[in-house]
């Protein structure tokens, strides 16, 4: 048999040292999420829409020469025109200005409710999940019983009794609103606390609060963020619903719900008074929902291709 010297051979495929090489740039978790979120066209559209809505909520009321509570009885129920872009209402107030004033209130209510839910829910769910055992049982049963109370009925009741103010509305929404968040945080903490890095941290003598704030909560941030994004539209919906029942904020404050309620009797003759607030309620809820869905998909490791 003929001898073939070794130097006649040459490696054409992978070299041993190549297999160890990392060809893809390493991505942090959030970068990866961002890339996947960006691919979701609907979610990106929602985010842009949201940016526009927030921009208009901040600057919209200053774009006209009118004030949201400035009445002008000589110009009431005007159709949309160059003077009044969205027309005027039954007291001659500029609907454009009032719409963006209402956007401020709606978005404020949504964000405030989501933040309060976040604090209570993370504290309650985090403690229940981390302590486990009897504490967990007791805390979560408490949450179960509270969650049996029908949400909207409770909110209506509180608005009737405590008076129609922004504070009451936010309190009413958060009384049972935090339960969902606490359940999600508890589930996450239960899952995470048995992982090795938590054990390592414990062995190194880290205190409970440190483990919570450095390990458990940051690693649950994904589901928390999704829940928050989806709380905002439901709070905005509740505000509009209450306004529509006549339980919203009292005039001259402009909120989308009360504007829609005021516009309802005039629907036949002055449809724009209902049309504009109603459209923006839908757009805002839509934007938050789509962004929330996109975030959830982007955070879900099963969706990774």
């Amino acid at each position, binding site marked *: 048999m003929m001898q073939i010297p070794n130097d006649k051979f040459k490696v054409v495929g992978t070299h041993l040292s190549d297999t160890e090489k990392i060809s893809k740039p390493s991505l942090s978790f959030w970068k990866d999420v961002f890339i996947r979120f960006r691919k979701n066209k*609907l979610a990106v559209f929602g985010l842009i829409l949201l940016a526009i809505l927030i921009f208009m909520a901040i600057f919209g009321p200053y774009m006209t020469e009118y004030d949201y509570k400035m009445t002008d009885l000589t110009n009431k129920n005007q159709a949309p025109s160059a003077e009044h872009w969205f027309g005027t209402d039954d007291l001659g107030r500029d609907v454009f200005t009032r719409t963006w004033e209402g956007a401020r209130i709606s978005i404020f209510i949504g964000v405030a409710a989501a933040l309060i839910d976040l604090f209570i829910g993370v504290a309650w769910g985090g403690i229940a999940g981390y302590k486990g055992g009897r504490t967990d049982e007791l805390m*979560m*049963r408490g949450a*179960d*019983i*509270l969650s*049996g*109370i*029908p*949400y*909207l*009925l*409770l909110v*209506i*009741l*509180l608005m*009737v*009794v405590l*008076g129609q103010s922004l504070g009451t509305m936010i309190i009413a929404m958060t009384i049972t609103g935090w339960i969902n968040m606490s359940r999600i945080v508890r*589930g996450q903490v239960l899952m995470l606390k048995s992982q090795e890095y938590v054990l390592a941290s414990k062995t190194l003598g880290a205190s409970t609060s440190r483990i919570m704030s450095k390990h458990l909560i940051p690693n649950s941030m994904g589901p928390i963020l999704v829940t928050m994004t989806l709380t905002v*539209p439901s709070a905005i*919906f509740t505000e*509009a*619903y209450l306004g*529509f*029942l*006549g*339980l919203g904020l009292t005039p001259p404050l402009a909120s989308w719900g009360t504007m*829609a309620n005021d516009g*309802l009797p005039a*629907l*036949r003759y002055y*449809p724009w008074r*209902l049309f504009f607030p*109603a459209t923006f*309620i*839908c*757009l805002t*809820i*839509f934007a938050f*929902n*789509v962004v929330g869905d996109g975030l959830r998909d982007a955070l879900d490791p099963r969706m990774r291709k």
Partner: protein
Amino acid sequence: MAKYIGKRLLYMLISLWLIVTATFFLMKIAPGNPFASEKKLPPEIQANLNAHFGLDKPWYQQYTDYLMNVVTWDFGPSFKYKSQTVNDLISDGFPVSFILGLEAIFLAVAFGILFGVIAALKQNKWQDYTTMAIAVLGISVPSFIMATFLQYFLAIKLGVFPVARWESFMHTILPAIALAAGPMAYIARLTRSSMLEVLANDYIKTAKAKGLSSGVITVKHAMRNALLPVVTYLGPLTAGVLTGSFVIEKIFGIPGLGFHFVTSITNRDYTVIMGVTVFYSIILLVAILLVDIAYGIIDPRIKLAGGKKGE
């Protein structure tokens, strides 16, 4: 199973007791007097009225009286309409709300499942995109806005449907659609994602390999499992339809219980608000309990005795 139901019943009773108690004390601290009117009442009449409605008793006695009344299903008189009791209002209004609610639930479930199944079978095709776009819209448009738009365009502008009131079947269509749109969208999305999950299973492949027709596979193999999550949604669906009906009945002028409830809120008719709140809470809690029990029976994989599901 019996242990689970017992446990759930206990929680339900505690929730109910909390609701009744909270309602009672909230109404106690509510500002204003139920008999407040333009004219000031002479003190004797005021005292008589208080005695008649038991308002002269100490609060703890009023509270126990109220609890007893709720247990015996007596929600007391209406403060505003002297000849009417809350029970009258409920027996007048609830049948109407019940029919409207059933119609809406039927629409939501039937069309929701239909759209969801179509979207899942035609994943990433135009049918999928169209139905899911409709679903996102349905979730984003609150029922009362849907109702006013339907009323404005279909009834006032085009005159296809009656504008309001509650007389014939035609009158029920628009309110039922408005009430059903949101839940329908939600069910469609739920059905789609669970259908997709089920369709990826091996037993579907087996069924295909056996040469079964795609209709049989979809209906008999895929849908049976895919519809389980939809059953769990029936509880929240009832809640949504119930609370949605307040505004819908207001918009369409339907004389249901929701309409009475909204009127009583505007009138600050405290006993009616209390009574209807408690009544609705009972209905909701019972509905959710029934759905959970039904779910346990339908899906033997769920172990009920272990307490909460999904853990």
